[in-house]
């Protein structure tokens, strides 16, 4: 826990204070990480989001048809995706794919003395390794979430259009009418908070690996479990704050 707080403080220093002392972070490594964390995860995110959109529409149809309220299917798909399923499911994918990879990569570097070598070369590991990953994650997870929301809505449309004989314009209008911008923004805020949680837990696990290959394995698994738990608890807290307190 102490290490985790230290990592967060040091991260804040390198992002918020260091640029004003002339130590601006380099752009190229951030883009490399963005491609790895974000762009390469896009197909997986698309498949997941499409399946979720289809599932939501089918479940909604099942329940709402008995009430004669099929016209509300787009509302349900849209709001559920924007507020909950989008941010949470895409965070789950990114934890499994990118969070674990970051923990394993940094852990292997720690075990093979690479982190120590950086320190001895007067290169701060947080500045050199954590900052690019952090910024990339903070940009790409919300971006993936928006992308996933689109695809999920597309999945809902596919069910409505081909199984329930909605017309496309009707689906789009209904979906857009139901959601307001806060639904989208709340999802984006969640997504950014999840990004913070995922990448700091992964980096912290990697940088504190001890004990060779076995340690790397444990740190990787540990980081996935911790990130999942922290993300789900934080989701409940944020939903409480955004939609339940007022």
């Amino acid at each position, binding site marked *: 826990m102490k290490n985790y707080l230290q990592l967060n403080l040091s991260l804040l220093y390198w992002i918020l204070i260091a640029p004003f002392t002339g130590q601006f972070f380099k752009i190229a490594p951030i883009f490399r990480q963005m491609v790895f964390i974000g762009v390469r995860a896009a197909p997986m995110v698309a498949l997941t989001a499409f399946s979720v959109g289809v599932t939501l529409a089918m479940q909604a149809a099942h329940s709402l048809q008995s009430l004669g309220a099929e016209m509300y299917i787009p509302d349900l798909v849209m709001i559920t995706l924007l507020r909950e399923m989008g941010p949470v499911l895409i965070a789950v994918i990114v934890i499994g794919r990118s969070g674990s990879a970051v923990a394993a990569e940094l852990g292997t*570097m720690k075990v093979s*003395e*690479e982190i120590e070598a950086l320190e001895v070369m007067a290169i701060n590991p947080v500045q050199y390794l954590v900052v690019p990953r952090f910024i990339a994650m903070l940009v790409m997870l919300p971006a993936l979430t928006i992308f996933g929301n689109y695809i999920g809505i597309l999945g809902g449309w596919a069910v409505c259009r081909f199984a329930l004989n909605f017309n496309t314009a009707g689906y789009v209008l209904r979906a857009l009418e139901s959601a307001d911008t806060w639904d989208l923004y709340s999802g984006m805020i969640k997504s950014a908070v999840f990004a913070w949680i995922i990448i700091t837990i992964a980096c912290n696990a990697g940088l504190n690996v001890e*004990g060779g290959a076995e340690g790397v394995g444990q740190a990787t698994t540990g980081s996935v479990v911790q990130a999942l738990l922290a993300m789900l608890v934080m989701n409940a807290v944020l939903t409480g704050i955004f939609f339940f307190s007022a």
Partner: protein
Amino acid sequence: MNANGETLIEVEHLVRRFGDRAVLDDISFNVHRGETLVIMGGSGCGKSTLLRHMIGSMKPTSGTVKLFGKEITAMKEREIERVRLRFGMLFQSGALLASLTVGENIALPLLQHTDKSGDEIEEIVKQKLQMVGLTGFEDLKPGEISGGMKKRVGLARALALDPELLFSDEPTSGLDPIMTAVVDQLTLNLTKGSHMTAVVVSHDMTSAFRIATRMIMLGHGSIVAQGTPDEIRNSPNPEVQQFIHGQPDGPIPLNVSQEEHKDHQHVRPRPFLGARFRFHHKHP
């Protein structure tokens, strides 16, 4: 002993304990500019721990280490970073960044700490690679070259900023005899020609006697002997004679006790379940 020149490293009464065991017990010595100090001793005698204290990556239990006249044991991380720009370090495994190519590894300190242009950096990388006999290896990844080559690239990287002081952890282990001679010659050229100071941890005696201007032998966490290579070679101390001639019998104990070893590795002793089952029928 070489008393000329400025003192670059002063180690005074350095003590480092892991648990109850003192891995380094009251070590004091100085290194002067232009010297090549070889620290030798058996495996697990605290050589690498001593080196880690000198580069500021471990804090002593008590005692001080001064580098370039400044005490690094009391420094904050940011101040240590400034001192670290003045020395290079070659790790035992090379410690190259696996995600970067050989060329990028050597360029890394230059990119991070200098304002040199891409062309200048490329030129320096070429020159450093040529120095260690690996011309044309810029674009390979560390995973594609042998252990000995990695070590030579590690040396090129340590020399990238033309440091005043070079620390080497086992620079010649894993190299063939010819390459060992090449690395030794390189160290000699740097110390004699460029007046670089070197601190080398080694148990390769041929190489040690070839490059050293002064030697320290560690044993049981303290200094067993120190002096010029000639003084060490003619030392009456039986431990020194056993070590430099590599004799299996002598005053140096063959086995480290399990307890001591565990403390040193900072691992809590773990009961070995197998033993209980295996010996159960003998000791019911």
